């Protein structure tokens, strides 16, 4: 008998690379309309994400779940290895919203003291 270790779900992308601000807000809200029901259905114990903008609506949904007292969700964010000196936009948004925030270069950890630096993970 094979156990299912995972399920796969699809949500619309929050933002394309280089997409304009105003349309990004619209597409992020659209993505949120999918993320909220999904996260409320799955009730995850941990949300683990690695950087793309699409993780932001999922994390916001997880925060809502927590604030409403429905589940104690842990939000863990790992910044991309490409980010050596500056945080990505997702990183900047989630730096204060996540429970554990990882960076992969020491210069970033100096700039963002709440971040955890364990060296390069990749």
């Amino acid at each position: 008998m094979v156990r299912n270790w995972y399920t796969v779900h699809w949500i619309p992308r929050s933002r394309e690379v280089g997409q304009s601000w105003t349309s990004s807000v619209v597409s992020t809200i659209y993505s949120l309309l999918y993320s909220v029901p999904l996260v409320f259905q799955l009730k995850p114990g941990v949300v683990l994400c690695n950087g793309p903008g699409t993780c932001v609506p999922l994390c916001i949904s997880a925060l809502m779940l927590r604030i409403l007292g429905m589940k104690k969700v842990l939000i863990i964010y790992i910044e991309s290895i490409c980010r050596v000196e500056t945080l990505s936009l997702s990183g900047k948004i989630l730096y204060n919203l996540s429970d554990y925030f990882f960076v992969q270069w020491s210069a970033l950890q100096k700039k963002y003291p709440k971040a955890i630096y364990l060296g390069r993970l990749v």
Partner: protein
Amino acid sequence: MNICDPEILQDLGYRKLILQIGRGSVEPKPLLGSDFTREVYRFKDSIAGDIQNSTLVISHAGAGSCLETLEAGKPLIVVINEKLMNNHQLELAKQLHLEGHLVYCTCSTLYETLQKLDFRSLKPFPPGHPEKFSAFLDKVLGFQ
């Protein structure tokens, strides 16, 4: 100065050139000779084999390309596209260059870079440590 020219590359000591051209508009012709071979393709599911069989990799500053090449232990020249200066991916290539793992140039300085290239000046690239993250996660989630 066309870097794909067999004469130029042979002068530098190379006998084979493999070009992955993506959606590029320039499409050099493949060549098959006893002294020199040039292969050209647009996409492959994986270029790991080509990287593994190479002596030198010349790439753009994409993180995937850099990391895949360095993890395979191959010398790497990263060519920066001067028209895309605000691309954040440059941060990684710059840092890896500062640490001595790769060489960094522009299209116009590529030939000179190839001439002056000293493989021994490049430092080996240590692997990343995903196990440190999993150990952390195990601790935080109480799975010890």
